[in-house]
C-alpha cells in the first residue's frame, strides 16, 4: 500500500505539472513528499510548489488570489485524471479569477467532459457563456427556492433571471 501511494502520487504529479502549464500558459509546478521523521512514506506530508510563468520561484504564500485558485484547480483535476470521478460540483470556484483565467479554466474543464460531468455554480457571465446548459435558481416567493431553465439571453445585467422561461 506504500507502493500504491507512491505510484498514485507520481501519477498525480505528472498530470499536475501538465495541467498547471495548460492553466497558466507556462510556468512549472510539483508535488513533493516532505521529509518525515520516521522516514516512512506513509507518514510524510505533501508539499505543493508552483512558479507562475515569467515569475521567479518564491514562497507559495505570496501567490495572488487568482494564482491560488488556478493552482488548486490544476491539482484537483490532476487527481481526477489519476482517478476519474463521474461528476464534479464546483461552487463559485471562479470567484477570484479574471476573465482570461476563466477562459483557460473552462477550456481545461472541457478536456475532462468525456469522463466527468461538471456542475458549476457561478455569478460570472463568462462562465455561463462557456457552459452547455444553464440552470436558474430563483426565490420569487420569499424564502422558497425554485428552479427555472434559462437561456443565456435571459440572464439580465443584474443577475436576475427573467421569469418568462419558467419550466
Amino acid at each position, binding site marked *: 500500500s506504500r507502493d500504491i501511494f507512491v505510484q498514485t502520487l507520481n501519477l*498525480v504529479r505528472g498530470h499536475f505539472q501538465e495541467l498547471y502549464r495548460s492553466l497558466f500558459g507556462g510556468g512549472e509546478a510539483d508535488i513533493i513528499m516532505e521529509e518525515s521523521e520516521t522516514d516512512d512514506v506513509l507518514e510524510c506530508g505533501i508539499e505543493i510548489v508552483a512558479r507562475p510563468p515569467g515569475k521567479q520561484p518564491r514562497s507559495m504564500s505570496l501567490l495572488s488570489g487568482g494564482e491560488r485558485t488556478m493552482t488548486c484547480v490544476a491539482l484537483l483535476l490532476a487527481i481526477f485524471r489519476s482517478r476519474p470521478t463521474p461528476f464534479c460540483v464546483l461552487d463559485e470556484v471562479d470567484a477570484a479569477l479574471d476573465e482570461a483565467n476563466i477562459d483557460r479554466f473552462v477550456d481545461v474543464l472541457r478536456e475532462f467532459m468525456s469522463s466527468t460531468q461538471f456542475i*458549476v455554480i457561478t455569478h460570472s457571465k463568462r462562465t455561463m457563456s462557456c457552459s452547455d446548459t444553464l440552470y436558474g435558481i430563483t426565490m420569487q416567493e420569499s424564502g422558497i*427556492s425554485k428552479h427555472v431553465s434559462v437561456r443565456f439571453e435571459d440572464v439580465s445585467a443584474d443577475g436576475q433571471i427573467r421569469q418568462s422561461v419558467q419550466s
Partner: protein
Amino acid sequence: MLKALELNGFKSFADRTRLEFPSGITAVVGPNGSGKSNVVDAIKWVLGSQSAKALRGSEMTDVIFSGSRSRKQANAAEVTLSFDNSARILDVDDEVVHVTRRVLRSGEAEYLLNREVCRLRDIREIFAGIGVTTGAYSIIEQGKVDALLQSSPKERRLIFEEAA
C-alpha cells in the same frame, strides 16, 4: 453520471423540486441567497454527509425547511439522487440507481437504495467505491477552492490517500 436530483422540504426548497442534470458543463445561476449552495448541500447530504457543520448547520435537522412568510415549516426533508448506471460504475446491478435520504423533525432518519430501505453506510460505501466521498474532492464548496493550499502537509496527504 448524475441524472437528476429531487429535493422536497430540503432547506429553502419547500416544494418538491426536480433538477435534471445533462452531460457536459451545467452552470447553476441565480441571485445571492436564492438556494444554489443549498443544492450542493443536498448532494452532499444524500451521498451520506454525517456532519451538520459541513452543511452549514448545527444539527442535522437544520436541513428541514423551517418556514417562510407564506409557508409553515416542513415536517421532513427528503432528497433523491438518480444516477445513470448504464456503465455499471456503481456496484449495483441496475440501469439507474436512486438514492434517497429522509430526516424528520424528531431526528428520525430513513435511507433508501432503489426504493429499498438500507443503512446510511450502504449509501456511503457505494459511492466510496467510485471515489466519491463526502470528504473528498468531487465537491468543492463555496470559498473552499484553495483548501488544498490552505491545509497542512499532513492534511493534504490524507486527501491524497483518499484518492489513491
